[in-house]
Each structure stands twice: as structure tokens, then as C-alpha cells.
């Protein structure tokens, strides 16, 4: 134990705490699940948008970009597109064969005439001087295709490409933005936007807090500027602060409450001190093991673990109640009597947590692992460490005797109630009908937003900034492949399908990522098509009064062997910011195509076979529905497993059922209460109900194991009531959390434990008169 304490003390500073929401996304083999998780972790999600408002917003944005670029913790900082960006991009694009970006469809006679006619118009325009520079080498205008692709981008793309998309035009329906010489601004020029990517993950709250402090320091140099930000980092910081606040509040109040209850009931500082040992030991071991297994501990695991302290105390309380109320029995003997119930109770609770672990969410798996380890460790500590430290001489306070007396009187009274067959059937029918009605009317919600707080300054700021940048895509066509080139080939196919879908009015527009770089085969085919079309290009030129000989660089390029551009080349180019957003670097090559104005996702899926159409919000809801169903099935199986274990132990179906009753009925009553209160049930309610069943079964086991005399039953009831109160203290406080997820967990467990203890009295009434001498 000392070793654990030392290791824990040394490990605390090294504990890696995370609040990454993607830990609560399913990590199963579902393709859309993986894509949804990838989108949540993509570069777009990593970028922080800084919105500077004020009379000199533009100058401040430039100053901020300059300042951020000197900081080692910043990977990139930019606003709009600078002249240098455009020059570098044009230089890069013109370094590849002029056929690279010209689609093969451009080599029909009609298309050739159209392209050359366009060139003639450009040359005739007052700004034809630019076209004139590139025309001899690129008469068909291939170099402008990637620019057109970027121009077609909007919404998310504005963020994704750090302003590249706003360089050319603002499509209808999007926010009015302008790019003022490298600074992306609102049309009224009161807001300037800076896009920042830190080297640290946005979920690394320590690094993000430090970065935020530096931003605030910078802001002090410009009192007339107002700064608002958007991005995952501020959610992570707010989330961490909220969890810390919840944890410290729960820990403080529940510890004080538990101390008061212990003092009141057991009246011994020694008992209080020893009583806390198993739970602290269990928490320390669980924390260290979780860090070792998962490499980090999630903030929600810590919050949940803090609440579990009350549960870890149940075993001690059960032991204490029997030890204190039977002063003539030695501590070790008492443990031998109640120990099997404690071990058995722990076993059934562990089975409940295994159900949670099977939910398929990494975050919940971690919570389950933490809980199982904490329960095993605290149960072991209770069994082996507590008895030797019990005082040899001990006089229990009168409070406990009074409570015990009252409970005994209550038991005597309720066990006098005659449970006739008809009455039992009537009660069972009422409960069954209530449970079925509750389930029938239950509303389930699998919207993940139900689990995350949607209020607060950070949420309002995020929404305000994003609304100024225009609509964001909420649907994506995602293409994956085994290699970069296979990806580009698949992207070619997907782009063709999307174009047909756009023509058919299934979508309004899409970001033509495929036009940024074609596959190697396509580039070779384009080069061959251009060579084959050379005589016709000459004819079309002559027809439109061009002088073909003036285009010698173009003819020379056609004579050269093709030099295909690769995704790697693009990733090292000035277009890298765009590539990073739509073609992120991942273990498996992937392309993300933002889609706009999707009218019918199902129709789109039918048309676009080369890509997976993902609506992240719907996908996540769908996934959570699957997780919920999976958890319910796991719970059912868990319950069956618990029943089997109970049956193996008691060799009696009746006893096994009775032991299950407090948990199962508490679960049904909790659902009914939540349904009556109009609370939609989420995955966390389902998991909390699993906890309720586990703890209720603990109560049932404790009770069934100690029904030889009513005095013994009374002592167990005292331990159950004490355990209920300490659990309610923990989870009841959790129900006040501003995190909807934690609050749901807290409320459900609080209701469940309350009902569980009430139903213990019901089974006491039911079975007590038979068991009493």
C-alpha cells in the first residue's frame, strides 16, 4: 500500500489528462465511424480562428500574424492570401507540363475552340497582360484549373484553406468576405480573421491555456481591438475547467458529507481514517493502471472516478455496520461472515462495468477499466487491510444504535405484512405494467450534443465567429485508398460522379478537390490526348487568328516526356494549406470533399459510389444509436450473467431472483421517473442504469446473505442505507454538473440508488417473515 502511495505521489505530476471528445466516438470498424472521427480530428478541426474587431482590425491582424509566426508553439498562422502566396502558387503550377490540369474533354474541336476563344477574350481584355505571360506555354489555360477549384471552395473551405478560397470571389449565400492584401476581412472591414494552428493538439489543455494567455497578452497592446475565437481548443479548456470544478465540488462536499455520516454513525476517527483507505487505495491503483494502459486519463474518467469513491465505500460501510453492531464478534470473524457478500457484490458490479466497457466507445472503455480496477482494489483493501486495523475496544455511538433500532422496528413492522399470492401477483403486475409503460413512452436521444454543454461564452464566441465566415459544409464525400495515386484515381471517379449529381440538382456545389491534382494515369492520358490533338489545336488556333508558331513553349512541352505531379509534390507546395484540409496526411490516404446544398443524402449516395457520403452529425447519432442498442444488449447479457452467478452461489432460483429484484425494479422505477419527467434517454442514462442494476444487486446480495435473524437483516439495512446515502452524496452532486452527460449519469444513479434501497425494504417485507425465527 505504501508502494502504491509512493508511486502515485511520483506519478501525479506525470499524469496526462485529456478532454478529447473523440474518445467518446465509437472506434469500431464502421467506415463512417472512422471517417467521422477523422473529421473531428482533421486539420480543419485543429485550427483556431481569431476574429479581431475594431477600427484598425486589418493592421492588428497583420501584427498578430507577425507575432504568432515568431512563436515556437505555433505551427502556422495566416489570414488571407498574400501576393507572395499567389506568385509562389503560379510559379509552382507553371513548373508542370501544361497538359497536367487540362481535362481530356478539352480536346474535342468544340472545347478547343471554346478554350482558345476564351484566351483571345482574355488577351483582348485590359488585364490581358497577365494572360499574355502564360499563354505561349499554356494556351488552353490548364494552370487556372486549380485556381478554379479553390474558387469553388467556400464555407469550411475558407477556414480549411486559411482564406485561399476568398481570394477570388464570394459565392451567393456565403458570408460577405474580402481579402484585403493578405488579410481576410468581413465586407464592412470591422472584422479581420487570423487562422492559427498550434503545434500542440487543441485538446492539450495545458498548452492551449498557455497559448491563450499569450494571445491575451498580445491583445493588451491593442485596447481598441476586441478578440473572439472559435475552435476546439476553447471547448477543451472550458470542458476541463468545468470537470475540475465538478470534481473539486463533488470531492469536497461528498467527502465532508461522508465524514459527517461516518462520525455520526460510527463515532470514531480511527474508523473514519481506516474507512477511507480502501477507496483512496482503489482510486490510486485505478489511476495508475489507467495511465499505464491507455497512456492518458480522460477528464470524464476522473470525474466519474471521483463519484465512484462513494461506491467504493459501500463495502467498508457494509462491514462496519456488522462490525460495530456486533461488538462481541472479532473484526476478522465479522469479515469472514460478510466478506463473501462483499466479494460477490463486487463481482456483480464488475460484470455491470464490463457491459459499459463493451459499449465500443474508447472513453467509456477507459471509464469501465478504471471502475473495475478501482472496485477490485478497494474490495481487496477492504477485505485484507481494514479488519486488522479495527480497534480492539470500541463503543459504538448511540446514533447507530438508534438507527439500527429504528430500522429493526421498521423491519418488524413491514415483515408483518402478509404477501398473499394475489397481492404478490397484483404488485408484480403493477410494476410490470409501469415498467412496460415507461419503456413504451420512453424517448431516446442519440444526439451527442445532448452530452455536451451547448451554452457558455466559448460556445457563443465559436458560433459568432463561424457565422461571420459563412456557412460550413455539413456533408462530405470521403474517398480513401491504399496509396496516394490510387486515391487520386478514386478522386477522379468521385469528382465525375459529384459533377453529375450537381448537374442533376442533387447538390448545389462541392469543392472540386479532384481538380487540384489528377492521378498519374490521368496525367499521362491527358498528355497523350494533347499530343494526339496537336494538329487540331493548330487548326483551331489558325481558325481563331492565332499564330501557332508563337506557342513554341507549348509545342516543346508536348514533345517532352510527361512529368506527372504527385500528391507529395502538392503537399510540399505553396498549395499545402489547401491540401492539408482536403487531402490530410493520415495513415491511410484520404480525401475529404466538402459538399453544399445536399438535398437528399440517400439519393446522393446512390449516385456517388466512389466516395462515402458522410453527414458527421447524423453519422454520430446513428453510431450512438448502435452503441446504445449494443449497451442494452450487453446489459441484458450482463444481467443474465449476474443471475447465473447468483444461481451458482445460492443454488436457488427464488433467492437469485430476490437478489436481483432491488436492482431490476430500481432500474424500472428510474426509467419511469425519467419518462414522466420528460427526460429523453441517452446512452449515458443507459449506462447509469447498468450501474443502478449492479449496485441494486449488491444490496440484494447483502440482504439475502443476512436474513437469518431480523437483527442481522436490520444491520444489513443500516449498511444499505448508509451506502445509499454516501452514493447519493456523490452522484447527487454529479447530477448538478453543468455537463449534461455527467448530470444525466448523476441523476439516474441517484434515483436508482434511492429506489434500490426502497425496494430492499420491499424484499425485506416479502422475505423477512419467512426468514425470521
Amino acid at each position: 500500500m505504501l508502494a502504491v502511495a509512493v508511486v502515485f505521489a511520483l506519478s501525479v505530476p506525470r499524469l496526462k489528462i485529456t478532454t478529447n471528445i473523440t474518445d467518446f466516438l465509437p472506434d469500431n470498424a464502421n467506415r463512417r465511424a472512422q471517417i467521422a472521427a477523422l473529421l473531428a480530428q482533421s486539420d480543419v478541426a485543429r485550427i483556431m480562428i481569431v476574429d479581431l474587431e475594431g477600427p484598425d482590425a486589418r493592421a492588428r491582424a497583420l501584427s498578430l500574424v507577425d507575432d504568432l509566426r515568431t512563436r515556437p508553439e505555433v505551427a502556422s498562422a495566416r489570414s488571407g492570401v498574400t501576393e507572395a502566396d499567389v506568385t509562389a502558387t503560379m510559379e509552382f503550377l507553371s513548373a508542370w507540363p501544361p497538359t497536367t490540369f487540362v481535362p481530356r474533354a478539352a480536346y474535342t474541336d468544340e472545347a478547343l475552340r471554346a478554350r482558345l476563344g476564351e484566351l483571345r477574350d482574355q488577351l483582348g481584355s485590359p488585364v490581358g497582360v497577365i494572360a499574355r505571360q502564360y499563354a505561349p506555354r499554356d494556351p488552353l489555360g490548364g494552370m487556372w484549373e486549380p485556381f478554379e477549384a479553390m474558387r469553388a471552395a467556400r464555407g469550411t473551405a475558407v477556414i480549411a484553406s486559411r482564406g485561399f478560397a476568398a481570394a477570388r470571389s464570394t459565392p451567393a449565400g456565403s458570408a460577405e468576405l474580402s481579402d484585403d492584401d493578405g488579410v481576410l476581412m468581413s465586407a464592412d472591414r470591422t472584422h479581420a480573421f487570423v487562422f492559427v494552428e498550434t503545434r500542440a493538439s487543441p485538446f492539450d489543455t495545458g498548452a492551449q491555456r498557455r497559448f491563450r494567455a499569450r494571445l491575451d497578452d498580445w491583445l493588451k497592446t491593442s485596447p481598441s481591438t476586441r478578440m473572439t475565437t472559435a475552435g476546439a481548443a476553447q471547448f477543451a479548456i472550458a470542458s476541463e475547467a468545468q470537470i475540475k470544478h465538478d470534481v473539486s465540488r463533488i470531492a469536497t462536499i461528498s467527502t465532508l458529507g461522508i465524514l459527517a455520516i461516518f462520525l455520526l454513525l460510527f463515532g470514531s476517527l480511527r474508523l473514519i481514517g481506516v474507512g477511507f483507505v480502501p477507496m483512496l487505495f482503489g482510486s490510486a491503483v485505478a489511476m495508475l493502471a489507467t495511465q499505464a494502459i491507455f497512456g492518458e486519463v480522460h477528464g470524464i474518467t476522473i470525474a466519474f472516478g471521483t463519484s465512484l469513491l462513494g461506491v467504493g465505500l459501500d463495502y467498508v460501510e457494509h462491514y462496519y455496520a456488522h462490525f460495530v453492531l456486533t461488538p462481541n464478534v472479532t473484526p476478522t470473524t465479522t469479515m469472514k461472515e460478510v466478506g463473501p457478500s462483499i466479494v460477490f457484490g463486487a463481482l456483480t458490479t464488475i460484470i455491470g462495468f464490463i457491459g459499459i466497457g463493451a459499449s465500443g466507445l474508447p472513453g467509456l472503455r477507459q471509464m469501465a477499466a478504471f471502475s473495475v480496477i478501482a472496485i477490485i482494489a478497494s474490495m481487496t483493501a477492504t477485505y485484507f487491510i481494514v479488519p486488522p486495523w479495527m480497534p480492539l475496544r470500541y463503543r459504538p455511538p448511540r446514533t447507530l444504535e438508534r438507527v439500527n433500532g429504528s430500522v429493526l422496528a421498521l423491519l418488524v413492522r413491514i415483515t408483518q405484512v402478509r404477501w398473499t399470492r394475489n397481492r404478490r401477483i397484483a404488485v408484480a403486475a403493477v410494476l410490470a405494467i409501469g415498467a412496460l409503460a415507461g419503456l413504451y413512452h420512453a424517448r431516446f436521444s442519440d444526439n451527442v450534443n445532448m452530452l455536451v454543454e451547448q451554452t457558455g461564452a466559448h460556445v457563443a464566441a465559436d458560433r459568432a465567429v463561424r457565422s461571420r465566415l459563412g456557412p460550413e459544409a455539413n456533408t462530405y464525400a470521403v474517398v480513401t485508398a491504399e496509396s496516394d495515386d490510387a486515391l487520386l484515381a478514386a478522386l477522379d471517379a468521385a469528382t465525375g460522379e459529384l459533377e453529375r449529381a450537381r448537374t442533376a440538382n442533387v447538390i448545389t456545389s462541392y469543392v472540386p478537390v479532384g481538380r487540384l491534382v489528377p492521378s498519374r494515369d490521368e496525367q499521362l492520358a491527358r498528355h497523350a490526348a494533347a499530343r494526339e490533338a496537336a494538329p487540331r489545336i493548330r487548326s483551331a488556333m489558325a481558325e481563331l487568328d492565332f499564330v501557332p508558331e508563337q506557342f513554341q513553349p507549348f509545342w516543346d512541352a508536348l514533345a517532352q516526356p510527361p512529368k506527372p505531379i504527385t500528391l507529395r509534390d502538392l503537399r510540399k507546395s505553396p498549395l499545402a494549406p489547401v491540401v492539408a484540409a482536403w487531402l490530410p496526411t493520415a495513415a491511410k490516404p484520404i480525401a475529404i470533399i466538402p459538399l453544399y446544398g445536399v438535398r437528399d443524402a440517400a439519393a446522393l449516395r446512390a449516385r456517388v459510389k466512389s466516395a462515402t457520403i458522410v453527414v458527421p452529425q447524423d453519422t454520430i447519432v446513428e453510431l450512438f444509436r448502435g452503441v446504445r442498442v449494443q449497451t442494452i444488449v450487453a446489459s441484458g447479457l450482463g444481467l443474465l450473467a449476474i443471475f447465473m452467478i447468483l444461481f451458482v452461489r445460492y443454488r436457488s432460483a427464488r433467492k437469485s431472483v430476490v437478489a436481483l429484484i432491488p436492482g431490476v425494479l430500481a432500474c424500472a422505477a428510474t426509467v419511469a421517473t425519467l419518462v414522466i419527467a420528460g427526460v429523453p434517454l441517452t446512452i449515458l442514462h443507459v449506462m447509469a442504469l447498468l450501474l443502478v442494476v449492479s449496485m441494486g444487486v449488491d444490496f440484494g446480495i447483502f440482504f439475502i446473505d443476512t436474513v437469518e435473524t431480523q437483527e442481522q437483516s436490520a444491520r444489513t439495512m443500516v449498511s444499505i442505507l448508509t451506502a445509499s446515502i454516501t452514493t447519493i452524496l456523490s452522484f447527487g452532486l454529479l447530477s448538478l454538473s453543468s455537463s449534461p452527460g455527467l448530470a444525466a449519469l448523476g441523476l439516474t444513479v441517484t434515483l436508482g440508488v434511492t429506489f434500490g434501497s426502497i425496494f430492499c425494504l420491499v424484499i425485506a417485507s416479502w422475505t423477512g417473515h419467512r426468514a425470521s425465527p
Partner: protein
Amino acid sequence: MMTRGLVALALALGVAFAHAAPPADEPPANLLSAPPAKAAALDAIFAQFKLERLRCKFSEEKRIALLAKPLRATGTMYFSRDIGVARLSETPKKEQLVVTPTVVRIRKGTRTEEIPLDKSKDLKAFALIFPTLLRGDRAGLQQAFTITLRGSDKDWWALTFVPKSASLAKLVTKVVVFGKKTDLFSLQVTEQSGDTTNTRLLEITKNADVPDAELKAAFGLQ
């Protein structure tokens, strides 16, 4: 015989005269080879350009090495001190081109294309020569160009703009604006490639004589 001889002489002289001197409404051929005027003379020219509005017809001819034949365009041009220049081409195609200090907007039928000028300082300097000149902003022009005046505001004059930066010189070698007294006559652009553009300005109307509604329509503001 003599009569015929005189006629022949007259014709010959006429031909010779026609070769030796341009018609009265064209700048003299030797204008650009004349010695530059003193810097102070520029003030008088720029003073007359502090215009609020202007409307004129234009007739343009571009000689581009890539094309076997010159490109010709005609239409109407508008200037608004607050907005910039709008050029409405009638031939060979209907097209609206608006140049503001920040963007060049080209509208052909239903299609509109915008070219932000802040992405190329050189293109910006080039595209804004004419509106900056009409505003009489000599200092603005001198940032990017060396300005030389030949002739004077008493008769024909030519303002030559030679780029100061090497990058701008890669686009245009020089821009010459011809005028007579207080009137603009034409613009001549010579590109680094040797291509030239001559834009003749006709039927010039200035300031209050250009109706509000017409100006707004030209810029696509109504």
C-alpha cells in the same frame, strides 16, 4: 499640260503633306521624340484631370504577337472619382469591366469574374493608371512610374509612364497618354512582349454632364 502638271504636283504635295503631317485631330508624329517638358509643366496637365466624372466612347486596337490580326473593340467608358472606371464594350462582344481600387470585375452575360488587385501590386499599378490619372493623383502614379511630359497644355501633349520596378516592367514597357489642351485623346500601351494597345477616346463628356443614373448603371449599381 501645266494644269495637269499642277494637279500632279498638288496631288504629289498633298500625298507628301499627308505623309509628313498627321491630320489635324491626331497628335504630331514627332511628339514623342520631342524633348521632355519641365516638371512644373506636369502640374498644369494634372490640374485639368481632377475630374469627378467622365464618359467617352472608345475605339481600341490591340496588336498581339500571338494573333495574326489585331483585336478591335469599341464601346463606352465611364469614370467616377469615387468608384473607378467602367468599360462597357459593344464590339466584338458585350462585356462590362469595372476597375475599382481593389478589384477588376469582368461580366460577360451571366458570368462574372473578379480579379483582386491586392494579389499583384504590378497589375494594380497598371490597371489603375487611367483612373488615377483622371483623379489627378500625380503622387499616386509617381509611386510606380516615372512620368515624362512632352508638349504642353497649350496644344498636343503626351504623358509617358515608364515602370519603376523591374517586375512591372516585365508586364509593360510604357504607357503613353495623348491629349490636346484640356482633352484626352488616346492611350497607348506597349507591353514587354512588344504587343501594343491603342485606345482612342471620343465624344468626351465631363463631370455634371454625365447623369447619375447612367453612371450607376455603367457600374452595375442599379
